[in-house]
């Protein structure tokens, strides 16, 4: 039985990686400009035209890499939240992390007046930073409000949902004060959009993802125990509050990093872990990794679809994720 599970695990990893690579190449090859596979390979090898090089390396590749990174980050973040709150429907978005980041972004755009001058360089770095700060602050607020000699998962979710509502209202208020230009900018970010992707964003996100996710997988032992419930965990010698705090910080850091560069994408943190759990079971060492892979694949696909479906315009990736996720949700609902 164990041996079988092991094999399925390794196979699953291989399959998902293969799917990701395949989708990567399909996506690389698809878009308004259609390159033949031969041209693509030539350009990848550095022998293509300048225009093609620009197309693949500056326009398409950054967003695809970012999709993979952000997708993995969101999925793992969702997985952590689902375990901590012992609620299979938890998602960083539901408890307000995404909205918190959105408020920060919108405030930033509002305060800088959406002015065109000089801000591109700084906004490239500051905008994601603002989003990240927003996510962290929101998490802090949730934790503070939920504190009552410790934080129970239920209270965490309830406070999160309440804060989500408040912040959403705040978001609208700020948006209504904005001028048309800034409003459009904010709107684009808010609907989850990776078209502004560039290699700088990738550089910001890579350390976040590649440092945190392995650490989270390392933490799997604790997650496995937390999954059993507070009382049992304490009985088994786990320092529940401290572990929960650490894990929340990690989860928010992941969600914040993802949302910072890819805009507001909800649902992914909910669906990816969900599917992963069905495929591989709740043992966190494996569950986390598969979640990450599924998240990456999902977002990569969503980006591809968003880019292609109404060429030359684009559907925001957040929208595509929601559209793909909703049917799955309904299906779950019907089955239960």
């Amino acid at each position, binding site marked *: 039985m164990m041996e079988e599970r092991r094999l399925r695990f390794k196979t699953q990893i*291989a399959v998902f990686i293969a799917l990701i690579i395949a989708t990567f190449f399909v996506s690389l090859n698809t878009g308004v400009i259609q390159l033949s596979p031969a041209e693509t390979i030539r350009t*990848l090898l*550095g*022998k293509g035209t300048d225009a093609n090089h*620009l197309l693949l390396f500056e*326009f398409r590749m950054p967003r695809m890499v970012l999709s993979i990174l952000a997708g993995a980050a969101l999925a793992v973040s969702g997985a952590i939240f689902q375990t901590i709150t012992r609620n299979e429907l938890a998602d960083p978005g539901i408890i307000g992390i995404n909205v918190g980041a959105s408020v920060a972004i919108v405030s930033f755009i509002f305060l800088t007046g959406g002015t*065109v001058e000089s801000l591109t360089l700084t906004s490239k770095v500051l905008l994601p930073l603002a989003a990240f700060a927003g996510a962290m602050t929101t998490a802090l607020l949730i934790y503070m409000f939920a504190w009552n000699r410790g934080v129970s998962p239920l209270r965490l979710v309830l406070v999160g949902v309440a804060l989500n509502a408040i912040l959403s209202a705040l978001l609208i208020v700020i948006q209504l004060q904005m001028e048309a230009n800034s409003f459009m900018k904010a709107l684009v970010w808010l609907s989850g959009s990776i*078209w*502004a992707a560039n290699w700088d964003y990738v550089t910001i996100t890579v350390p976040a993802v590649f440092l945190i996710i392995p650490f989270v997988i390392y933490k799997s032992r604790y997650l496995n125990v937390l999954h059993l419930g507070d009382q049992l965990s304490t009985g088994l010698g786990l320092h529940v509050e401290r572990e929960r705090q650490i894990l929340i910080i990690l989860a928010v850091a992941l969600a914040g990093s993802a949302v910072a560069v890819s805009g507001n994408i909800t649902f992914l943190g909910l669906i990816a872990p969900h599917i992963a759990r069905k495929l591989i079971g709740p043992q966190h060492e494996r569950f986390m990794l598969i979640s990450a892979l599924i998240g990456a694949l999902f977002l990569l696909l969503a980006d591809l679809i968003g880019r292609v479906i109404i060429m030359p315009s*684009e559907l925001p990736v957040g929208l595509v994720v929601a559209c793909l996720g909703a049917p799955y949700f309904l299906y779950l609902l019907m089955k239960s």
Partner: protein
Amino acid sequence: MKLNKKRLLLNLFLFGLMVIMAACSSGAAENSQQESPGNEQKTEQTAEETASETRVIETVKGDVEVPANPQRIITDLYLADFIALGVKPVGANEWALRNPFIQEQIDGIEDIGAPISVEKVLQLQPDLIVVQSDENYEKLSQIAPTVVIPYASEGDFYGELRKIAEIIGKEKEAEDWIASFEEKAAQARKQIEPHIEEGETFGIYEIADEKVYIFGDNWGRGGHVLYRALKLNPPAMMQELISQGTQWKELSLEALPEYAADHMFITTYNSQSKGPDQELFKKMKSSAVWSNLEAIKNDQVYLMNFLHMYYADPFSLEEQLDLMVEKIIGVEK
């Protein structure tokens, strides 16, 4: 059996990785050996082939070097301006392409998407990009020299036209048009003189999705024409806003009477159909606040077509001048 499968997969994966790494590194080596500026990222059909001259333009993003004689221009919203100056771009965004006054001249111009699709722009191989929004500025700059002219950043419409003319070296054409428009405006003023009284106010309003807005003299919807060309007066409250630099204001129903003018030009806009909305005006006209306005009672409310009034470019301005004069002299006192 199981062991072999694992090994096989692992080996395949590592092998694939190796191939990719090798390819990438050899590609990098080749790039550095190439003579052409590998990462300079100008498209093949650059200005160097057609004219060896360039000029430097001051922009909000710093100085930009543009070709002296651009052949393939891409713009998002300044389409009609270019056409008026005698140059036909190869790409514009759908909003600009809907301008009703240039429909005969836009054959073959492609839609570049909104938000701007950098791939589409790349595909069109431009040698100059002039846009209003700074979205994706870096990526666009890598395709061709890109100039950003934010909305209403050049003072007024004439300033905007002159800026565009400066970029493509058509200053003379711009001045010619401005002179002819000023003449037309002077004639129009003479035409409406007998029909208006001293101190009468004129206002421009838009009803968009049930909200009412009022506009100043530099925010489209015929503002420039009404206040600068025809030199008519806005309602006092609006005049104050304009002098403070505010060009538009959303009006609540209570505030509407304060901002109402003796003559009101109204456009309606439905954001779903992205066009005028006849039903909307009928609905609002019958409401208590509106029907008490002097302008309504004196039948001095002119319903205009949003698509005619929204754009601000040489073609639109001339048409708007005619349209507005028509409405004003159509009212006999």
